[in-house]
């Protein structure tokens, strides 16, 4: 992602030498709309919030199924937990170390998408 842009908004309005003034002016407008809590600003914010919440709930649902489903699985198929994999009961393989890479993968996938959502939002606000 781009590093935090250091110049505060006022400075940019008076500095004429990068980009077109047209883009600059609309960018200013959208952020101001969000600041001023207009209907349009609220729409922008709501779209980001909804996208992030949907993503979060999706990851949590996956977590609930993949990890949270294990006790139910062991309950419904009592023989399964004791099945030996490489000499170890399956339940031990899964709970002892199998779960951790899954958690890591879920976290990694979440970050990629959350940052993409934020990038989309940033671009939308800037380019409109």
């Amino acid at each position, binding site marked *: *992602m*781009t590093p*935090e*842009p250091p110049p*505060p*908004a006022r400075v940019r309005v008076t500095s004429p030498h990068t980009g077109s003034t047209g883009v600059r002016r609309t960018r200013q407008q959208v*952020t101001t709309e*969000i*600041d001023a*809590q207009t209907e349009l600003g*609220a729409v922008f*914010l709501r779209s*980001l*919030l909804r996208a*992030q*919440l949907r*993503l*979060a709930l999706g*990851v*949590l649902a996956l*977590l609930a199924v993949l*990890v*949270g489903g*294990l*006790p*139910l699985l*062991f*309950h419904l198929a009592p023989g399964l*937990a*004791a099945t030996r994999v490489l*000499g*170890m*009961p399956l*339940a*031990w393989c899964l*709970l*002892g*170390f199998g*779960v*951790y*890479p899954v*958690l*890591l993968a*879920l*976290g*990694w996938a*979440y*970050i990629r998408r*959350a*940052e993409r959502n*934020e*990038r989309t*939002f*940033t671009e939308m*606000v*800037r380019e409109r």
Partner: protein
Amino acid sequence: MSHTAGLTAVVVVSFLTIAIGTWSLRLARTTSDFFVASRTVRPLLNASAIGGEYLSAASFLGVAGLVLAYGAEMLWYPVGWTAGYLVLMVLVAAPLRRSGAYTLPDFAQARLESRQVRGVTSLLVVGIGWLYLIPQFQGAGLTLRLATGLDARLGGLVVAVVVLASVLAGGMRSVTFAQAFQYWLKLTALLLPAVFLLLVWFGDGSPSPADAAHGALGRDGGWADPLSGHGTGQGGHPLYATYSLIVATFLGTMGLPHVAVRFYTNPDGRAARRTTLVVLGLLGLFYVLPPVYGALGRVYAADLVGAGRSDAVVLELPQRMLGGTGAELLGALLVAGAFAAFLSTSSGLTVAVAGVVSQDLVSRWLPGVTAFRVAAVIAVAFPYALAVLAADVGVATAVGLAFAVAASTFCPLLVLGIWWSRLTDVGAIAGLLVGGALSGAAVLWTFTAGPGDSWGSALLSQPAAWSVPAAFLTMVVVSRLTASRRSAHVTTFMVRLHTPEAVELDRG
């Protein structure tokens, strides 16, 4: 283990902890350019610090003891303590950082603009902090008795004094470097002996722990069975107990007082997420190890269960499996790690509790620094007294209850506060009180009454599955009823929580 080696390990770790706490404060000032410049190091350093503070005596000693005594069911504790960070990352990490709040009461006050909410959250921080500190003191007493022969109460006192000294010497928390060091010390202390012990085990023809036919559970005790129902004390309702434990640990992590503060040290919301991902990796790496000790203990030290000393299995294994100077050294390393685990967590908690006590209570009568010192003494003395008086319910069980209370109070507050703009101050207070009272009553019951087989006892010893939904429901319903009390600046605050720092906005 000889008392000399154990004593040396304890003294060295105590000295290093206090020394790094004081010295790296100066070091950090002069080398701050180095840390700020190398941003690539930052998530790893920060994540190590979070891991160092988070991995407590319950993780280092308690998990292995539980696995030894009760088997596969107990593997849910480390899994839940790690998965809690995934839930935290997904729901809380970036917005909490962007809120600019340093502690949970700060967040509550900023979001709901109410002094009353701040008061209730402060009380809860103190309550959860103490509940978490009690098993730390008990675990430390156990470690010291084993390592040096000191009486457990006296050992707890020694430890309380060391914690107090290190907190007053400069506050370990303020020094990311000191906490990061603690993580790697703990990992090494558990990893190195495990390698040697596993070699011995292979040399013995790798007898399967699942087939070891002795111990508390008898011949067919179902030690390898993940739903045996022995561990949670709920013979009849293992599925309920397991799911309730999952709810408590998955949702409780975000509400622990010493966890939330760590997110402030991230430069921005994006870094907060990335740090949490590294934390997931570091915790996963660490939590593979304690069950190894528990399983080896099943083969080599099963008598500890009958003697009621299963929490000591990590410390006793080298002596039983190796013998000689090697065992002495590895044993000393484990004592050092256990002691570090205890010190870092209790220091972090002490600072969190003392901060709240001094800010919201003592500072009315005393000036700043004195207030913090007095508060620190209160923050340590009270849980120490309780640790001596309260029944020893097992390190990990007591920590599990702290998670249940955190999940029933701060989890709804954070999740609804961040994602639902209609939350009101009255709704938040009502939910915190309901969740706190329900889970708190269950905790009191567990500490005073024994385990049983009835549904009532199952529900009370693992309260999260019903107390968390009750708290959520109360917050939502009461907020709906008091919609007129919605905070005036909630939209501005929500914008600040959710927009990336790259967008220039008025952030209040």
